[in-house]
């Protein structure tokens, strides 16, 4: 099938699933695992020999051992499971609220020009304000429990969604609108058949950033108050001078963020299949 199109028609073939592809994936995976081992090896060497004293940086092997104990604890539903689960829920709720509110606000600003004109400088100013500065107030308003963490996550994550939604709804090009008009399309038809699909790649760009930012917001919230979550664990580790605990919690946060971000990327590839592949490596 692919060969038939590729021969004399000059049709660009997007990707071919040949034997070479699998071989390349294996090589890439080998390289990536090698990089990790090299990193851990250098870390271990520097700490084991005392070049970096252990009160500044625990040995890689100790961190890995702690990470192993934490993972077992998570799987068996121990105290680490509560921390892991708490942060996960905070990030997910922060993300969902950011997406729902951000798309609504972004679409409203894009569609109602007077509203946009009246509020845009303040949207830009709010985006330029370090929202982390609101953290103490957010604790006062929303308490020490999960709500204040979710609000913090939304405060950080909503802006990329708003800005990208606005860009997406402004992205429809003039000729496409001329085409729809020449076909007698109604306003709703233009919205559903043209403007929303056009905006989708932009929306997903915002969602990807929002997922990462929601994690930042959740951890900041945990620093501010409460006694649960992986952010709280790193704070506690610092107070108790248990650096291996802290690094293990950071590794778990990293893993969470990586997996959640991947889920958004996978959803984007499915829904926005026509978008040219991003230049950022997988």
């Amino acid at each position: 099938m692919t060969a038939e199109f590729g021969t004399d028609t000059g049709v660009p073939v997007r990707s071919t699933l040949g034997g070479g592809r699998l071989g390349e994936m294996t090589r890439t995976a080998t390289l990536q695992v090698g990089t990790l081992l090299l990193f851990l090896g250098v870390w271990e060497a520097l700490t084991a020999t005392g070049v970096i004293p252990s009160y500044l940086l625990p040995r890689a092997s100790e961190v890995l051992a702690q990470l192993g104990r934490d993972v077992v604890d998570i799987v068996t539903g121990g105290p680490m499971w509560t921390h892991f689960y708490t942060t996960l829920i905070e990030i997910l709720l922060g993300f969902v609220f950011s997406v729902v509110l951000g798309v609504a606000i972004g679409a409203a600003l894009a569609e109602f020009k007077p509203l946009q004109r009246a509020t845009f400088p303040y949207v830009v100013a709010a985006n330029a304000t370090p929202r982390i500065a609101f953290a103490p107030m957010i604790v006062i308003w929303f308490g020490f429990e999960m709500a204040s963490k979710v609000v913090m996550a939304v405060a950080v994550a909503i802006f990329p969604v708003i800005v990208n939604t606005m860009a997406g709804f402004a992205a429809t090009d003039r000729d496409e609108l001329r085409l729809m008009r020449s076909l007698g399309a109604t306003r709703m038809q233009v919205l559903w058949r043209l403007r929303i699909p056009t905006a989708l790649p932009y929306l997903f760009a915002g969602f990807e950033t929002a997922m990462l930012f929601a994690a930042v917001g959740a951890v900041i919230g945990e620093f501010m108050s409460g006694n649960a979550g992986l952010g709280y664990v790193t704070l506690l580790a610092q107070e108790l001078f248990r650096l291996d605990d802290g690094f293990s919690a950071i590794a778990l946060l990293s893993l969470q963020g990586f997996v959640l971000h991947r889920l958004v990327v996978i959803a984007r590839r499915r829904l926005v299949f026509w978008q040219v592949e991003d230049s950022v490596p997988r």
Partner: protein
Amino acid sequence: MEVTIDNLGKVYTSRGGEEVVALREVSTSIRSGEFVTLVGPSGCGKTTLLDIVAGLTPATVGEVRFGSNGGQHRVGLVFQRPVLLPWRTAEENVYLPAQVGTEPPAGEDAGELRRRARELLDLVGLGRFAEKYPWELSGGMQQRVAIARALLLEAHVMCLDEPFAALDEFTREQMHLELLRIWEQQGFTAIFVTHNIFESVFLSDRVLVMTPRPGRVVAEVEIDLPRPREKEMIGTDVFGANVRKIRDVMAEHWSE
């Protein structure tokens, strides 16, 4: 379907409040099934004239009449870029006109149009590519899909706004022959816009020469080449004479 353009004028108000005359006193009548080209430099109002005929923008003065009794008419539109929706396959793009408008067809009519979309892809030589997405097609193929789309609802009049300007020389020549073949088979009235004099001579029955500031038609040149047109005609004396006629008119009315 014949198209009568009667004393058409268009005045824009620019941002600074200045009045810009985009089109002045354009009158012509186009026979049913005629191939007419508007040729002229940028800013001469070609696209404005086309947009008025296609109903995309209102005229300031004058009017465009379709047919003898001014009844129902459909205008197909092809742009310089293919303007295909990337989330739709070639066939779905051709079918788009059936899905928008105040009364989209349903049931049997919809099925009929589905079949017609397939047939039109066959007509433009892309039957095998119906399930392909626009980004899997070359520039020339994309523009053929756009032509098929403009034909779906059996347009009586086809407006083509520099449809081949973005294509390479070889593809463009091929597309000229393709377009003429489709035009002869479908029998629509074609209004074609270009700034390429050779293209205008090769395609048309008649060329309207336009000049800018204000945009107006300064001459009509009947092209006396036989149909069907063939590539070999391009080198002939008759072809050259027609090209020269248009160039002379341009030089006379437009010195910049």
